[in-house]
């Protein structure tokens, strides 16, 4: 509360965003500990959560007052005119402080009270049980087992405690592989397709600068491949664009070269020279472009696939450009489409979709297991794994299943929600709309297959609100370990409940359950 100097300002104008001739509503602006509230003369209320505020801007003073423009993370833009500059300044300063909290304990979730008692609250947290979900997929089974290697977060801090790995992969192999992978994120099971006995696995990039081969990592990949009794080969999908691979190559920090090395060493024990590496890397790049590779017999067990999804920084600036174009009034059709094109947003959406389709086809058509990775394995990898599973498994297209999918591939596997959504005052370069893109991809699917989903657009929007709102505990923190510490620290005060809307609001009433 120490940030709030003015709690109430009268005679404030709210510009009507639909009107073309700058019409406005007059009313009173209230500043509370959690919300900015505007009540107009018709008693209509406009609530803005402090955590939703992405930026506040005070424009130059005009004759009617001091304009205050607030841009929200849910893409809403509100334009107030405050009569006195001093009031405007006070509100401006308060909002700057309130919208960027420094500590987790100051976030809304720790004070939000939906009038639940403790047992109800605990029930909320037990609503989704991932062990139950793996059981539904059919693991553990004769080929896959639960590993206790990460029970104490000793191997990988950003992974959950429970991880599923091939039965033949022993603990030393897992430990060895984790040392070879960035942030210790070694290959683990994300989704198991029961009918095809094929798996989606995920990991991070192999560590660059390693000159020696990593036998354990090679073994683990082999184990994943062998865990699929139907198909002899498996795919390794690198979700990063190949031009970046090329530039990494040039700076000698190329992970592609490591991949070439692993791949050649795993399956044939020959020594390879630098020029050999370069040749193979180019060949891989070419094959990704569909030009083929003459020596494919050597790689019959592992197939590399590149899909060009750009990194978080490209996505962040793409969204910025998109919002700029979308927010401009009076554009010509040409300007709109060239703006849309140069923002690149739809190109990125298509890249994510293409990757997910490739993944789903590899499993459905070829019966092959797929290992997906990007750099750290928590952004693009989460997008591709979760969207691919959604294409394959109709359970994830139900309300409950979709929540499970988010809990599994995003929350548990350590998508850094707090950094990506900018929950706390932190590095703005870590903010990126990776999860927003995932939701948009799902929305495109609901448009193309209107009957295949149990939920509708309102459900997706509601989730998008709450990844930023910090109202519930689900999306707080950057990984499970951090979340557990938060719960201890907060005396377990966070409540968890993803959807606060009545069910009828977000249910797709024309769903065909057989799809």
């Amino acid at each position, binding site marked *: 509360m120490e940030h709030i100097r003015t709690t109430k300002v009268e005679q404030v104008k709210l510009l009507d965003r639909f009107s073309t001739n700058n019409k406005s509503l007059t009313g009173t602006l209230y500043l509370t500990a959690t919300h900015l509230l505007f009540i107009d003369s018709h008693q209509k209320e406009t609530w803005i959560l402090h955590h939703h505020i992405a930026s506040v801007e005070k424009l130059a003073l005009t004759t009617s007052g001091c304009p205050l423009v607030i841009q929200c993370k849910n893409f809403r833009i509100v334009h107030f005119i405050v009569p006195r500059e001093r009031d405007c300044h006070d509100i401006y300063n308060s909002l700057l402080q309130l919208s960027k909290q420094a500590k987790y304990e100051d976030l809304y979730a720790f004070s939000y009270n939906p009038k639940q008692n403790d047992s109800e609250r605990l029930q909320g947290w037990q609503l989704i049980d991932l062990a139950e979900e793996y059981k539904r997929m059919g693991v553990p089974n004769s080929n896959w087992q639960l590993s206790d290697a990460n029970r104490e977060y000793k191997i990988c801090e950003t992974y959950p405690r429970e991880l599923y790995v091939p039965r033949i992969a022993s603990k030393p192999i897992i430990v060895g592989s984790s040392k070879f992978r960035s942030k210790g994120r070694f290959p683990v099971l994300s989704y198991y397709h029961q009918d095809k006995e094929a798996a989606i696995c995920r990991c991070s990039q192999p560590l660059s600068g390693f000159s020696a081969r990593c036998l354990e990592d090679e073994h683990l990949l082999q184990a994943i491949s062998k865990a699929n009794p139907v198909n002899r080969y498996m795919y390794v999908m690198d979700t990063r664009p190949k031009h970046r691979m090329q530039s990494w190559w040039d700076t000698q920090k190329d992970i592609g070269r490591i991949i070439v090395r692993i791949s050649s060493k795993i399956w044939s024990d020959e020594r390879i020279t630098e020029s050999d590496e370069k040749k193979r890397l180019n060949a891989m790049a070419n094959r990704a472009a569909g030009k083929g590779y003459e020596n494919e017999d050597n790689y019959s067990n592992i197939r590399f696939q590149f899909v060009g999804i750009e990194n978080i920084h490209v996505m962040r600036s793409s969204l910025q450009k998109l919002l700029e174009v*979308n927010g401009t*009034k*009076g*554009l*010509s*059709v*040409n*300007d*709109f*489409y*060239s703006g*849309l*094109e140069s923002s*690149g947003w*739809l*190109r990125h*959406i*298509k890249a994510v979709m293409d990757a997910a389709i490739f993944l789903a086809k590899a499993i459905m058509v070829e019966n092959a297991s797929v290992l997906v990775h990007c750099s750290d394995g928590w952004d693009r990898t989460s997008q591709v794994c979760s969207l691919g599973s959604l294409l394959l498994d109709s359970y994830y297209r139900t309300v409950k299943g979709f929540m499970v999918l988010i809990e599994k591939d995003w929350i548990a596997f350590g998508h850094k929600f707090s950094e990506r959504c900018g929950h706390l005052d932190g590095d703005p370069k870590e903010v990126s709309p990776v999860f927003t893109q995932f939701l948009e991809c799902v929305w495109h699917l609901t448009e*193309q*297959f*209107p*009957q*295949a989903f149990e939920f509708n657009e309102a459900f997706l929007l509601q989730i998008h609100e709450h990844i930023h709102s910090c109202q519930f505990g689900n999306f707080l923190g950057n990984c499970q370990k951090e979340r557990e510490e938060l719960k201890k620290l907060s005396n377990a005060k966070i409540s968890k409940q993803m959807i606060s809307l009545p069910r009828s609001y977000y249910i797709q*009433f*024309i769903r*065909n359950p057989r799809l």
Partner: protein
Amino acid sequence: MEFSELIRTGRAQAELLRGPEAPPLRGTLCVTSHHLLLSPGTEASPDLWLLLLRSVDSIEKRVAGDSGTITLRCKDLRVLQLDIEGVEATLDIARSIEGLRLGDAWHFHPPERYYQRVARETNAWRLSEVNEDFSLCPSYPRALIVPRSVDDHALARSAGFRQGGRFPVLSYHHAPNGTALLRSSQPLTGPQKRRCAEDEELLRAVLVGARPGARGFIIDTRSAQAAKQARMTGGGTEAKAAYPGWKRLHRPLERGRPLQESFVRLVEACGDLEQSMDRWLSRLEGCRWLEHVKEALSTACLAAQGMEREGACILVHGAEGTDSTLLVTSLAQLILDPLSRTMDGFQELVEREWIQAGHPFQLRCAHSAFSHARPKHEAPTFLLFLDCVWQLGRQFPLSLEFGEGLLLALFEHAYASPFGSFLCNSEKERGLCEVRTRTHSLWSGLNQPKEQRKLRNPLYALNPLAIWPSVEPQSLRLWQGLFLRWTRPPEPSETAWEKVWQIVTDSEKTEGSA
């Protein structure tokens, strides 16, 4: 000439490919006078596959070895491929289709609804039969609604002053405030800046009839410069001094060949399934189709706004008054008039504002987007209208009583139809061809009960207000149901539509029994 003479080969064995999603059909191919038939062998489904020959836009044949391939590109934008056994058979069938698809029309029928409703609403207007024998204006129907105080003699003088004799007539009477929407062709002012007292009197009478002191706007669908240039060829636009109370606005709309080219380029872009997102977006932008949609809708909004909000009368014209003029007047009515948004009202609107008003369908819709023939008079003005209506329906999903199905049907029938409604270029021609006695009306075809579920909007609820669409490019969308109709599987949206119908009918049943 007997059509049967054009048939060279009766039948052949063939395989038909209908696009990436549909399974191929095998069977015996037959050519009849009006149709291409494929009857599958005994083992397959007994359904006969049928194609109206007049719907073929272009035909391409290729032979290799002892078989041949015919690619048919249809006016409804479908692309079909026929693999035929035997070189001779392929060439003969191709020749037969080529000869027959251009054959004369055969089935026709009378339009029926005239100006009943408009005449009922107001006393300021009368029904004139001055054009009884089409002598004043060959492209107008026999009866027209004109200001009560203007006699037939004055109408004749005004007709002489307007291109093609298209003098100002009532298009829509906005009952809530008594304003009127009129349409005409350009005045023949010419380089000498001629005037016509009767024409001026006619427009003055419109204002007086609406309300004392009423104002009017003349919306010219050409740019100010184009309107000025038209004077050199005898046309022009209304001089300010000659028409007190009327103010001229220029809103240029694309027409003719550029519009046709835009359509062709859009269809080309939609047919290319292997392109990057950037290429797709720049092609979508480059074809400028959505820009035309935006311009048409915003001009219609301007006309509607003038009537509803300013209480002004509106006269719309371009040059001939048979294309972009009709686009604007018909869209403005949809925005303002709840009745025109019903199933019956919309059909009446199309009949009155397009067919009867003399939109030259025969010339404009001779070829669609695939034709290699050099375009002469082709222009997808009517399709642009349908696209604009679709955008309205998307922005106001409950306000139109008809669905996308009706718009698709109208598009198909405008380009190729077994019904007579869209035949010929004007009422006069339809009379000469005895369309009404010799063919069937499209409306009676569409209004059969079994068609209703496809054409009607199950969610419709009467909306008594004007519907103001957003014309920002952010709000406009590509009409996928039409332009991507044959390249993506139709089942998901069709079954969803069917399901919505089922839910609506079920809930009506339970409400009825409760």
